[in-house]
């Protein structure tokens, strides 16, 4: 029971991290693909202005997930930390670089340094999302083996395969797709709206292609993902939702509300689709599946964790709502700064 409630909260936190944090990654990735120099500065400014206020908050979901994992499910945390040590270090390096360059770019006025920050931010966004995907791929593929005897089997084999990197590419495309949705709504000029809607189409096509690659590489790596996916009625329903939303998107992608419901809707449907295939397992090892239930901490710990989470959410969610309301919905009555 406790495990279930904590599981639901974690799942919501994960979804929020993917939708908000993922859009931040995607914005960085989109900055890599700027063939039109005339929109470059406008794009950069839009991204900085719209992401700035929520930037730090978007990334706390990840810390929350890590804390839930090591407090409530220490065995899973330790298994992942060991087997995916290298991808996790790669993720951390990416997080450092993009976290500081995004903020430094905002405050630094030097043009040459700014170009350096922009490139670092864009590249590290792509780098981090790929490695996030690699870690996820490695966690579900089933090559984790805590009882192995060689360093390669213990620390490299779990993620050193085509499937994990295909997931990495797929995740990056999804993030870029999310970012386009978000930026269509933020853009103030028709030109920028069109620009980002072209990006949305491109990243959508790329997501479908890399999604196909995920199934293909799973087949190569003897992981019957396609079979499990297409025989699971819930997953198929999610595919249906994603397809319908994608079709609707073709017609309504320039509308702010539509793009902001449809695109995150598609991404959520995809995540849920995979979730239904894999649940209740979170991590697959050679010795079997790790689920929340079989790695849970003692009940006293879970009870305290749940209390902390509930109190935390009661404090955090209204504050987060306030933040978003101030910057996104409130018609600004500009307050003069008295002098």
């Amino acid at each position: 029971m406790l495990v279930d409630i904590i599981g639901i909260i974690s799942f919501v936190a994960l979804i929020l991290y993917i939708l908000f944090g993922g859009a931040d990654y995607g914005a960085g990735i989109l900055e890599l693909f700027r063939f039109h120099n005339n929109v470059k500065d406008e794009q950069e400014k839009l991204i900085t202005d719209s992401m700035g206020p929520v930037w730090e908050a978007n990334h706390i979901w990840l810390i929350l997930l890590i804390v839930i994992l090591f407090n409530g499910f220490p065995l899973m945390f330790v298994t992942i930390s060991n087997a995916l040590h290298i991808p996790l270090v790669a993720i951390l390096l990416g997080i450092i670089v993009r976290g500081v360059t995004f903020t430094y770019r905002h405050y630094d006025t030097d043009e040459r340094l700014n170009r350096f920050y922009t490139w670092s931010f864009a590249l590290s966004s792509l780098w981090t999302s790929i490695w996030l995907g690699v870690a996820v791929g490695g966690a579900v593929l089933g090559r984790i083996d805590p009882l192995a005897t060689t360093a390669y089997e213990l620390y490299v084999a779990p993620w050193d395969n085509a499937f994990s990197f295909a997931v990495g590419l797929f995740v990056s495309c999804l993030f870029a797709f999310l970012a386009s949705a978000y930026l269509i709504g933020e853009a103030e000029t028709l030109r920028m709206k069109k620009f980002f809607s072209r990006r949305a189409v491109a990243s959508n096509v790329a997501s479908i292609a890399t999604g196909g690659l995920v199934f293909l590489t799973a087949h190569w790596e003897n992981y019957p993902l396609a079979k499990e996916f297409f025989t699971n009625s819930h997953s198929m329903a999610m595919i249906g939702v994603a397809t319908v939303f994608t079709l609707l998107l073709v017609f309504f992608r320039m509308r702010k509300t539509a793009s902001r419901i449809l695109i995150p809707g598609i991404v959520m449907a995809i995540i849920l689709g995979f979730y239904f295939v894999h649940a209740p397992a979170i991590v697959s090892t050679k010795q079997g599946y790790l689920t929340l239930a079989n790695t849970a901490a003692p009940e006293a710990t879970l009870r305290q964790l749940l209390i902390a989470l509930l109190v935390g959410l009661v404090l955090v969610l209204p504050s987060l709502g306030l933040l978003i309301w101030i910057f996104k919905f409130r018609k600004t009555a500009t307050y003069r700064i008295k002098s």
Partner: protein
Amino acid sequence: MDIFTDGLTAARTTMGFSLGFHIIFAAIGMVMPFFMATSHYFYLKTGYRSYLALTRMWSKGVAILFATGAVSGTVLSFELGLLWPGFMKHAGAIIGMPFSWEGTAFFLEAIAIGIFLYGWDKIPGWWHWASGVMVGISGLASGIFVVAANSWMNTPAGFDWVDGVAVNVDPIAAMFNKHWFQQALHMTLASFEAVGFVVAAIHAYLLLRGSSPRLNAQALRIALTFGAVAALLQPLSGHLSAQKVAENQPAKLAAMESHFTTQKGAPLLIGGIPDEETQTVRYGIEIPGALSFLAFNDFQAEVKGLDQFPKADWPKVAYVHFAFQIMVGIGTFLALVGALFLFKTYIRKGHWSRPLLWLIVSCGSLGFIALEAGWIVTELGRQPWIIYGIMRTSEAVSAIPGLGIHLVIFIFVYGFVALFCLLLLYRLIRSYQKPQGTPYAS
């Protein structure tokens, strides 16, 4: 080199380096928002533009340093598992509670900082001010929770250790372990002291150079008032901590004092070079009975020496001893400087003399050196244990080869981050200075 052949050394160095780096930003994140909010308060009260400029300048500094601290903190939360899986497997369930509260506090801090930084013309004055205060309060709270988790490693509580497994886990007892209050208090004061003195030093230097005298004088006054009060309270808090350490971690106290032989009426050692082999100290000054008094409020009390412990359970005596001496020495000196500043500013109410300003400038980094030295005492003094008396650090370390490479990469990346951060802060401060032509005269 050791770090490439010995995983334990590499892991310990990596953890020490990551923590030492993060602590600087964490301390600033805990304290600077209060400076910023104070200046903001004076602006809202008086309407002086210089307070507005100061608030804005400091808030940009907070933003830059917060962003850096947020990522170095994320790194640490992962490194617990990456470097110390043996520790986290057992400790995660026991001390996760302060971490989950810390997560909440940090989340609120991140939201409040978003509102404060971007809310200048979007929310009314006093509400805006309140969001700045929230940044400080939640930052302080998150610092206290994390220190509570650390103090559990020094005075483990809230579980029974049966055959290498923790049973009867009680997360509340673990969080409120014997050292949590003393450590949290000492760290909070240390942060105010370190940040107060370094910020004061920057503005004292700018005052001496004669740029924007009003802004820099206001800045100096706010920063060093916080710093000096903290510096005066810190010896009391240090005394409380030392008594707790004497009670609960006698080996650590013995190492701090290079106290090799158990004796009654133990002397307090000032300076000196300890030699672990011969168990002697050269060149130290001894104050008879003072250690017994400081540790147990009794000049004749018996203080356990390192001879009470098997040599395998000793921390590295020399490192702990030197770090402790540095911390106490700097702490004493800064308390004196702080007292002088408070006297000149609030009792004499006169101008600061140029020598006083130079003195403040020269104290600039001392607070942070003391803070880092204090953490070296805490952490190295706990060795060879990762959970004091329960689990050795060597049992907790990851078995992955190549941790030395991990360390080198992080030193390299953090080095670059520090460089760009300093460069940015330098430019930020400079952009707020208007040269007046006339250097500050007392």
